[in-house]
């Protein structure tokens, strides 16, 4: 079976090391949550996977494609949605999706039908022809999410996807992600809302100081942290990150 993502020995140093000797494997059809305290290296890791930041060392394979040797092929099956929506205020959601579909070379007729469907699902149909400049942060996040899904990526990478969303929108996005995973898609997300990871993730990775401290299902993490079955992810997370924190 070809893994959705294999990361080996990933290293990145800016003014100080951000990611160190990181190994990560994400299986196809799973929702993987990457957790960690602020500055742990989560976003840097995901940016390297998305092809935005060049690693100093290591390898990245996305569905069998070497992402460093053939970035275009890797990007063709990947989507990246950061916490700051990558949209254009002066374009309408429909125009934005037209542009994104063009970037991924999606057949125009299919792209348009998919854009309309996505905007409807995300509750943005009535705003489809209105410029994004007056949108709330949550609405912009939803437009960006539609952009990430327009080319039906095999691997969807989301950095803090629920930031700025109200309760109803957050539920909508969670349902969409779950439906995507149920349909065989692969999702990697970072979040500070540990309940989301606890409820949704098939496996969880905990990263601190640029290193992967623990990885697995919640039960695996509990046993790694030496805690009981009743402990929440929050307890486990705090225990593991406190142990793994540099002295």
């Amino acid at each position, binding site marked *: 079976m070809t893994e959705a993502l294999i990361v080996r020995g990933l290293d990145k140093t800016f003014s100080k090391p951000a990611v160190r000797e990181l190994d990560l494997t994400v299986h196809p059809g799973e929702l993987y949550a990457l957790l960690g305290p602020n500055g742990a290296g989560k976003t840097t890791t995901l940016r390297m996977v*998305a*092809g*935005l930041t*060049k690693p100093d060392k290591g390898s990245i394979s996305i569905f069998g494609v070497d992402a460093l040797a053939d*970035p*275009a*092929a890797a*990007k*063709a099956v*990947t*989507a*990246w949605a*950061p916490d700051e929506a*990558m*949209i*254009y*205020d*002066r*374009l*309408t959601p429909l*125009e934005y999706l*037209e*542009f*994104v*579909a*063009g*970037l*991924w*070379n999606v*057949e*125009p*007729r299919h*792209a*348009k039908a998919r*854009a309309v469907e996505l905007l409807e699902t995300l509750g943005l149909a009535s705003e489809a*022809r*209105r*410029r994004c*400049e*007056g949108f709330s942060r949550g609405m912009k996040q939803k437009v960006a999410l539609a*952009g990430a899904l327009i080319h039906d990526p095999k691997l969807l990478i989301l950095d803090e996807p629920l930031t700025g969303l109200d309760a109803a929108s957050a539920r909508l996005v969670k349902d969409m992600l779950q439906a995507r995973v149920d349909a065989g898609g692969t999702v990697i997300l970072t979040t500070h809302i540990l309940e989301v990871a606890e409820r949704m993730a098939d496996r969880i990775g905990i990263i601190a100081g640029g290193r992967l401290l623990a990885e697995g299902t919640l039960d695996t993490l509990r046993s790694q942290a030496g805690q009981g079955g009743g402990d929440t992810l929050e307890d486990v997370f705090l225990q593991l990150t406190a142990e793994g924190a540099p002295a």
Partner: protein
Amino acid sequence: MSLLRPGGVAWLLAHEVRLNFRALTGKRAMGGVGAMIGLSLLALLMLTGGVIIGLALRGLNVPVVPLSAAIALACCATAFTLMLSQTLAAASEALYERGDLDLLFSSPIPPRTVLFVRALGVATGVLTVFLIFVTPLLGPAIILGHPHWLGLFGVLAALALLATATGLTLAMTLFRLIGPRRTRTVAQVLAALTGAAFFLVSQIRTLMGERASESLFQSLAREAAEGRVKIPPIGYWPLKAMLGEPLPLVVMLAIGAGAFALAALSLGKRFADAAAATQGAEASAARPVKGRDRAFARGVFAATLAKELRLILRDASLLSQVLLRVLYLVPTAVILSRNAGHGDGGAALAGGAGVVVFLAGQVAGSLAWITLSAEESPDLLAVSPAATRSLRRAKLAAALLPVALLLAVPLAVLLWLAPITALWTALGAGLSAWACGLINVWHQKPGKRADFKRRRGASWFATLAEVVVSALLAGATGLAVAGLSPWATIPLAFAGLAMLALRRSDAQIAKVLRMA
């Protein structure tokens, strides 16, 4: 009581000056060395010119006669319109740029103090721009025997204060008449029109039938020599103030300061209300985009081209800033056609063609900066599988297309009247626009669209390169139109060499962008 009492005018002004200074120098810790060398060379050049002027004018006494008074009035009017263009744009922007405005208005500082300081900042900024150019040119003359010419600086200060008061009042009047959504656009367009007012007025004379070869000043000199220029006594005051006569100088300064104080203090409350009303006004009033239900664009090039053209057309603030160049380009192209129609040849056609070519490069360069360097979502493009070259080609096409459309009609008319001139001009304009676009591809400097005005400071090398290459191509076109084609190859070759020197490989561009 301390002079910088917290919450006072001086304290707030110091804060404003500090922010402006940091905005100017903030990102140039390393890249600023080249800019400093360039600016120092320019200053040295201007100072040398100033010393030559100073030596030439030593012992000269400016006569207080109708011609000199008329020239002084025309200079004042030109300076005032240029200043008004800047202050009107700055006053309207002050309403929309949130910055620290919300913080200041939520503090106990009276709104009139906030506006007073902000307006003082605008006036100081405008005056500084003029002083930068005037001081090295006239400073030596003042030192070399004309100390009373210091009055010129007083006149400039008075004009800056008056222009700020007028700009502020105009912006607030517009706000009242047409509301927050349209004020920004209309004010920016008005600012562009005001900035080009003198050029447009002189060109209207030409378009209406006057001979193009006679400038406004030449016509003034002719009429003065014929004794037809009549100046009322008060019309001599600007000249006298420039020459340091105390009473006219004090009166001009008092008029400027009085108008400034009146506008800044009386509009304070309204300014606060207007600034609050702009919050989200543009966005919330944005109507749905009309248009038929058309199909999506196919592929990277078409989708990117459509996106860039939409973004250019929908950014009124940016458009108005490019408009200033267009206001010079289109009338010049029309006059070129008109001169050809009148059978004017030689210098008039060659000069006109050269100017069109130069301006085509400048407009294309501005648009290329917007499409290439001011990309709003670079990460989106970076995570997509689209080839960088396809994206660049589409962005370059989006910058060149408006220039082609602007020149299409005047050049079509010219083609009918003077086919050879039209062909040379079209070729030169196309080359110039393409070259300036390519310079922006090779020397991208990521920036925000809102920083369009400051882009020259951020990438002075690319700006200088654009000016030099488009000037060389303008020279080549002018020579070709004048029938001196063999000579045209010289500036053309220099332009080609400059482009070869400026060229950067994809890897070099990517490396620079990664470091930016």
